[in-house]
């Protein structure tokens, strides 16, 4: 261990130097002001073209995943939709990647970059599929791997889904630092980076996000080849924003500029994300509003100085679904389509059902990921665990679902509606957060232009709303 001061304050104070050494990216180079930075140049200067990324990913069993038409589910939606309604629902089976989720795309370029630059290993702080992806990619590139994971509450109890994710990391040969609840995960990441000199395989670097772009280009190519048109909507489970940002960038690179980019999260309103008590009452470990909303409205709250995942830049709509709705659709996917997949990937499938019933029959909606399932990482495990921990589980109207208290599984498919979030409110919330970094009356023309691009609006819109912040 390092002889340096390891108190919380001392380690956090060394954040910038630790980051510089562990990433090989000088973020200062892209900064234009406290508000603005050159996002596109930062993304370009990873030095990898989309063809390079595809080649690198093929080396480590990533990408080229199947795109399936969910014929029975589409039929079921059409039966309850109005005349002429009910878009065709497709799913990109990302569980087919090494390590069982789209996160392999996100880890693959970091692993390649770390090996190329001569790092001995890589580290990621995550409680999700990303840990397994980093471990699996590191194993294939001959790198050591440490995963820093929030696993337990203060009683030493962890949700089965998180415990399974930790197991997967160890299965791929990683050292897993298993921690209790708290935002100090970032502090532990910094300590591990400082102790080892390993590469920071942060979820939020340009490498991580560029790796997801192939998911978007593959969708564009597969849908065009089979249906002779572009997808009308792509549904994306949204947490930290990388899945949405990378996929949307890939779709745009392929020329799908009319495709609706729809974010989807499980509504966990009312639960505190850093609370020891609430930790095991979420029934979802990711893809929920506890990450989705704060990351959309301020991306730069992460383990790198500027986040390459900037979801509001690309998002057209944001749909919320309840826990009960997702568990219902997960079971329906299994029974109707013969596909058993983990719940997190089915968040966007649930929103897709709600959206497809309102779209025309000749339209196409793509659910852009699945994830592997198994012991712990299964909807039955999560529901049984919820019930054991005092959460009520019943069938009924999903509108009665209360996160942490009652999971209400719909009685029938026509109760699956989800709920659309107000995008303008999210954009204003982003601007308010920017105003905390630098007061709105100090924003330059360039700042306003940056902010406008970052929320998919024009400078006039930002100026119109500045006064009210």
């Amino acid at each position, binding site marked *: 261990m390092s002889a340096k001061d390891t108190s919380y304050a001392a380690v956090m104070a060394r954040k910038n130097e630790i980051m510089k050494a562990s990433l090989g990216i000088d973020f200062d180079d892209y900064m234009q002001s406290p508000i603005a930075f050159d996002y596109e140049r930062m993304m370009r200067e990873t030095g990898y073209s989309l063809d390079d990324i595809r080649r690198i990913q093929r080396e480590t069993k990533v990408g080229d995943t199947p795109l399936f038409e969910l014929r029975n589910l589409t039929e079921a939606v059409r039966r309850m939709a109005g005349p002429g309604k009910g878009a065709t629902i497709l799913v990109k089976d990302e569980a087919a990647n090494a390590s069982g989720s789209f996160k392999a795309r996100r880890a693959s370029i970091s692993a390649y970059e770390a090996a190329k630059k001569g790092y001995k290993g890589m580290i990621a702080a995550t409680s999700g599929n990303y840990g397994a992806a980093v471990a699996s990619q590191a194993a294939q590139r001959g790198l050591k791997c440490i995963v820093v994971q929030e696993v337990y509450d203060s009683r030493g109890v962890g949700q*089965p889904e998180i415990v399974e994710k930790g197991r997967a990391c160890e299965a791929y040969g*990683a050292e*897993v630092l298993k921690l209790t609840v708290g935002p100090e995960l970032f502090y532990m990441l910094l300590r591990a980076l400082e102790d080892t000199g390993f590469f920071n395989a942060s979820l939020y670097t340009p490498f991580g996000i560029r790796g997801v772009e192939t998911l978007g280009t593959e969708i564009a190519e597969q849908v065009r080849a089979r249906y002779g048109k572009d997808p009308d909507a792509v549904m994306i489970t949204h947490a930290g924003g990388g899945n949405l940002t990378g996929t949307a960038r890939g779709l745009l690179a392929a020329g799908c500029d009319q495709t609706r980019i729809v974010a989807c999260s499980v509504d966990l309103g009312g639960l505190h994300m850093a609370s020891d008590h609430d930790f095991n009452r979420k029934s979802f470990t990711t893809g929920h509003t506890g990450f989705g909303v704060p990351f959309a409205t301020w991306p730069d709250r992460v383990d790198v100085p500027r986040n390459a995942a900037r979801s509001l830049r690309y998002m057209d709509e944001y749909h919320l679904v309840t826990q009960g709705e997702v568990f219902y659709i997960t079971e329906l996917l299994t*029974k109707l389509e013969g596909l058993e997949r983990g719940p997190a990937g089915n968040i966007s499938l649930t929103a897709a059902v709600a959206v497809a019933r309102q779209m025309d029959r000749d339209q196409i909606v793509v659910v852009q990921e699945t994830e592997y399932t198994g012991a*712990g990482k299964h909807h039955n*495990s999560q529901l049984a665990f919820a019930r054991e921990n005092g959460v009520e*589980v019943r069938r009924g109207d999903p509108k009665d679902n209360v996160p942490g208290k009652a999971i209400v*599984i719909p009685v029938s498919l026509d109760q699956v509606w989800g709920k659309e979030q107000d995008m303008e409110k999210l954009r204003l919330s982003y601007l308010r957060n920017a105003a905390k970094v630098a007061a709105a009356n100090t924003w330059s023309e360039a700042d306003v232009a940056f902010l406008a691009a970052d929320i998919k609006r024009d400078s006039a819109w930002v100026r119109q709303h500045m006064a009210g912040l």
Partner: protein
Amino acid sequence: MSKIEKGTWVEIEQVVLKPEERAPSVPEDTKQVPYVLRVSGFLLEAAELGAEVKIRTIIGRELSGVLRTVNPSYSHSFGTTVPELLTIGTEAEA
């Protein structure tokens, strides 16, 4: 109590931050408890459970903490039957 042999696969526990050392931003309930780390590795010297020990992790790092578990394993499962799921998408509900 008998000693656990050197080289055994074990899990150690370490209090990383005491309650009063935690990040300023943590909510009240979390602030009451320490920030705790558990990690697995091979035991470097024979020791009893509860002793302060050193381990070598699977990637070769030496870490220290209190010896907590011998042969740590996983017991998560598919969970007990959730009857509410059984009928979804079947004839029983058609």
